[in-house]
């Protein structure tokens, strides 16, 4: 019988992808691709709530608009993609 390996996360040198929590990852994703900022009529930029940002993302990606960080949204965020922001302010 083989002995199970005790898994242990390691920080690999030069590895940019850090061991982030899903919430941290979502925060960074929403910001990077433009979902967290909104342009007001006055021309000033402002941040929107995570829930609003998530809804914008879910609309853009054709996902169910729950406004929550559900599994389909997390999966979509982890997919390889183009670096051009989805929302431009």
């Amino acid at each position: 019988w083989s002995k199970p390996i005790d898994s242990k996360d390691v920080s690999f040198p030069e590895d940019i992808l850090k061991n982030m929590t899903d919430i941290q990852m979502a925060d960074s994703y929403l910001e990077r691709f433009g979902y967290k900022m909104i342009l007001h009529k006055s021309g000033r930029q402002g941040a929107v709530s995570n829930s609003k940002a998530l809804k914008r993302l879910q609309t853009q990606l054709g996902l169910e608009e729950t406004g929550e960080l559900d599994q389909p949204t997390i999966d979509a965020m982890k997919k390889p993609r183009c670096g051009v922001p989805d929302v431009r302010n």
Partner: protein
Amino acid sequence: YKTFDGDLKWDHNDVTYRILNYSPDLDVSTIDDAFARAFKVWSDVTPLTFRRLYDGTADIMISFGKKDHGDFYPFDGKDGLLAHAYPPGEGVQGDAHFDDDEYWTLGKGPAIKTYFGNADGALCNFPFRFEGKSYSSCTTEGREDGLPWCATTADYDKDKKYGFCPSELLYTFDGNADGEACVFPFEFEGKTYTSCTTDGRDDGYRWCATTSSFDKDKKYGFCPNRDTAVIGGNSEGEPCQFPFIFLEKSYTSCTSEGRSDGKLWCATTSNYDKDQKWGFCPDKGYSLFLVAAHEFGHALGLDHSNIQDALMYPMYKYIADFSLHQDDIEGIQYLYGPKKGPKPTPPKPSTTTSSPVSTGKPNKKTPQTTPSTASTTTPSVYTPVDPSVDPCTVDKFDAITEIQGELHFFKDGYYWTSSNRGNKEHKGPFMVSERWPGLPAKLDTAFEDPLTKQMYFFAGTQFWEFTGKDVRGPRSIEKLGLPGSLKKVEGSLQRGKGKVLLFSGENYWRLNLKTQKIDKGYPYHIDNKFGGVPVDAHDVFLYNGHYFFCREIYYWRMTSKYQVDRVGYIYELLNCP
């Protein structure tokens, strides 16, 4: 679909592009081809044409880079962000950047194009059998010079088809050494190197000197990745080392242990705990063609679409038989309008990379059992046309060429002539055998030497030279210095000073008519000079100072400055009613 604010677009339709550097993952011709096909996706549905520049500033500057690569948008290592591009405009606008920490392929795993050998540049076939053993990567078994090779069919022992795999011992790319192979050992800043190194660079690219001393000669090139090389990490380009120790346990294959993202990795020395050298194991990779087609959409003015099946959807998805989604077509045609002229043919599948390379062998030993280099040509079966047949109904001529100011159209032993002078009605059919006795009915190309007025005809692997009715030949095209594996010469362009370009497949060679030898340095890919014409043209000829590239019933006319200025029907040239 969505466009950028203000509907940013190019104010001209002849868009230029330049490839600034290459990725070590794929060979240069595969990358050139992927980009050319990606542009074709858009030129097929718009009036846009794309011309490649080799120096100066192009509208779309294409480059590979890693992490911080010169703009404010760094890449993020393997996976995650794959590429980005800027909307049309001056400076960095319009440019496309590709993350070279990705594993660039054609989307279906290692696409290892071979060099030399006897397989005409075919891809490796994994797994293959050699002396009873199965190989799923390139091997140096059977050789004493360390050159990795692979079979291009499933069984080398049976088929004897092979080629050499990319390695620094075969060639380098970019740099200043014209693709020369690495020389080991070499000296750099007084230190001796026996393998490619990233020393002296901060971008992580592996390089080598192509003479024994970089310090003295300053000659260098970048090392292509071997198929067994790891991607990213801190050992890009090095092979996995099995077994290796990780957290005091021994591993004999790639593992995802230690990672929360599940990606497979390996150590590149025997002990990770001690050396901390590692990289990701090769996977299917990302299709450079698909990613480039998406990025070029941005470079032309399209923003991300929210239609999941559209090319401009922001997430990557591999599609084997790609065709542009209606949403993308509507988007790009909103900016540039629809294509005028003949209807486009569907784009080729994204996996075609079979352009032949020059065959032969490096000056080193072949695998233990020397493969045969003999090639066979199966004669083509054809049905002769009825001489009463109207040439205006012929859908594909065998050859077209200008002889003494008149265009000649050849088909199955007959020919017709047309001229844009005097009575413009076409004449014929005439019997080829009456004017040029001894020629086969099926010709591939023909041309007149403008200096001597001698006629040259090519059919299959043979050619004939006519002075009036006096014939010399047939002789083998191999005598001219063309590769023995070449099945036919499909087109020809007279270049003055006794030179003629001969076209076959996606490549062309320059023939010196005086010495009757191909000039050194050839072949070149058609895109090298003739951007914007079909790379699968079955006839190429010179007429009235223009270059004509034909596919089926269509022609692409190119000026002497290499700009496509007209696409039309062959029937126009025949002066059909």
